[in-house]
C-alpha cells in the first residue's frame, strides 16, 4: 500500500464511514419515502389508478422545487429544519438531512418512470381481480417494475455519493470531502488520486451489485 495511504489510513476509514452513513441515510429515505412519493406521482397521473390533478401537481411541484435548488443552497435553506430534528446543523448526522431530502426527490422520479413502463394489461388483470390500490402496488406494480426500480436505486445511490461530496460545507465529512480537502486544497495530488480510486472501486461495486441483482430478479 502506498505510504501516504498508510499515513492517512485512520482518516480515510473514518471518511468512508461518514460516506456510508450519509449515503445509507439517503438510500433509506429514498426507499422509505421516495418510493411511496414516486408511486403516488404515478398513480395520480392522468389515466392512472388514482388520477388526481391536484395531488399530482402539488407533489410534482414539490419534487421539482427541491431539484431546482442549487444543492449548496438547499443545505443552507434546510438548516433550521435540520436543527429542529437533529438538534444541530453541523456534522455527519446533520448532513444526512439534506441528503435525505434530495434523495427522496431524486429517487421518486426514477420510481415514477419505472412504473410507467409496466404494461397496462398487468394492471388491468389486477383490477379485474378486485385488487385494492395497495394490492395493485405491492403485488403487481412493484413486482413487474422491480428490475427497473433496482437499477434506478443503483443510479441514485451513485448520485447520492456525488452529492455527499458537497456535505463538507456543514462538516459532513465523507470520502469525497476528504479528497477535496486533503488532495485538492492541500495539493496532495497523489493522495487525491488514491482516494478517487477508492471511490471508483466503491461506485463500481455498487453498480455491479445493482446490475446483478436487477438481472437476477428480471424474469421478463
Amino acid at each position, binding site marked *: 500500500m502506498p505510504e501516504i495511504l498508510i499515513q492517512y489510513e485512520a482518516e480515510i476509514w473514518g471518511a468512508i464511514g461518514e460516506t456510508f452513513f450519509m449515503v445509507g441515510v439517503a438510500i433509506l429515505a429514498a426507499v422509505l419515502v421516495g418510493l411511496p412519493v414516486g408511486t403516488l406521482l404515478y398513480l395520480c397521473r392522468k389515466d392512472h389508478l388514482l388520477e388526481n390533478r391536484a395531488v399530482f401537481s402539488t407533489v410534482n411541484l414539490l419534487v421539482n422545487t427541491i431539484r431546482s435548488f442549487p444543492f449548496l443552497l438547499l443545505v443552507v435553506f434546510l438548516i433550521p429544519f435540520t436543527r429542529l430534528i437533529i438538534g444541530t446543523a453541523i456534522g455527519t448526522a446533520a448532513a444526512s438531512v439534506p441528503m435525505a431530502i434530495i434523495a427522496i426527490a431524486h429517487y421518486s422520479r426514477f420510481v415514477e418512470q419505472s412504473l410507467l413502463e409496466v404494461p397496462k*394489461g398487468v394492471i*388491468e388483470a389486477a383490477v*379485474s*381481480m*378486485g385488487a385494492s390500490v395497495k394490492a395493485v402496488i405491492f403485488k403487481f406494480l412493484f*413486482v413487474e417494475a422491480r428490475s427497473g426500480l433496482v437499477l434506478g436505486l443503483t443510479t441514485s445511490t451513485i448520485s447520492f455519493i456525488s452529492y455527499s461530496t458537497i456535505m463538507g460545507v456543514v462538516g459532513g465529512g465523507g470520502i469525497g470531502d476528504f479528497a477535496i480537502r486533503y488532495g485538492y486544497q492541500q495539493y496532495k495530488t497523489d493522495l487525491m488520486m488514491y482516494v478517487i480510486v477508492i471511490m471508483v472501486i466503491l461506485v463500481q461495486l455498487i453498480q455491479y451489485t445493482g446490475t446483478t441483482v436487477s438481472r437476477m430478479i428480471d*424474469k421478463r
Partner: protein
Amino acid sequence: MIKLRDVSKRFGDFEAIKSVSITVGQGEIYGIIGASGAGKSTLLRLMNVLETPDSGEVTVNAQALTNLSGKKLRDARKSIGMIFQHFNLVANKSVYDNIAVSLQLAGYPRKERRRRVLECLQFVGLEGFMHKYPAQLSGGQKQRVAIARALATNPQVLLCDEPTSSLDPNTTAEVLGVLEDVNKRLGVTIVIVSHEMGVIKSLCSKVTVMAKGEVYETLSMKPEGVPDIDNNPKYFVDQLQKDGSRDDT
C-alpha cells in the same frame, strides 16, 4: 345475473359498442361470436366495467356496477373471474404465484392456497410448470395459466375472452370440460367470446352474434357437450387422414 342495458362505448370518435342490451341468466353459458373487430372483447370488458361505458347500465349479481366505486366495486369484481385475450400474466411472478395471488386477493385462507393452486394447475395440465416464469412458457401454456388463475377463486361469473385460441384440440377439449364442470357443479355463470364455432356449440345455451358494435342476433341453442378426445399425438394423424367435414375451417 349479468345485464347490460343500452351500453355504449366510444374510442375517440370510433363507436366500438352501440347501445347494446344483453341478459345473461344465472348459471348460463353464454357465447359471443362475431368477426374480428366486431366489439366482442370490448363488450366483455364492459361486463366487469374494466371499460367504463359512456352510457347505459351494467348490472351483475343484482348490483349496478356502473354506480359502484371503491371497495364495493372491488368486492363485486372478486366474484367475477376473467380470462384475457392476451393473458396479461405477471411476467415476474412464477406460474404458481400468478395463480396464488388471485387466491390471496380473494381472501383465500393461506394454508389452502397451495392445494388449490396445484388443483387448478392440474385442471389445465401444467402440474410440472409451477416454478417456471411466463417467458419460459409456450403460447398455449400461458393461456392455460391464465385460465387456471381465473378459475382458482371459484368466481360466480367467469368472463372468457377467446380462452382456447392458442390451444390444440385436446387441450381445448380438456379446458372446455373444466368449464362445463364448474358450470354444472358450482353453477358458475360463464360468458365465452370465441371465434371457434366448435367451442361455442359444445357449451353455450345462448349465443349473441356481434357485428360492427351491435347485436346482430341472439340465438338459444342446445349445447352439444364437450367431445371426448384422446390425449395422444395419434389423434392428429387420424384427423388429418380422415376426410372430415370442414364447417369450422
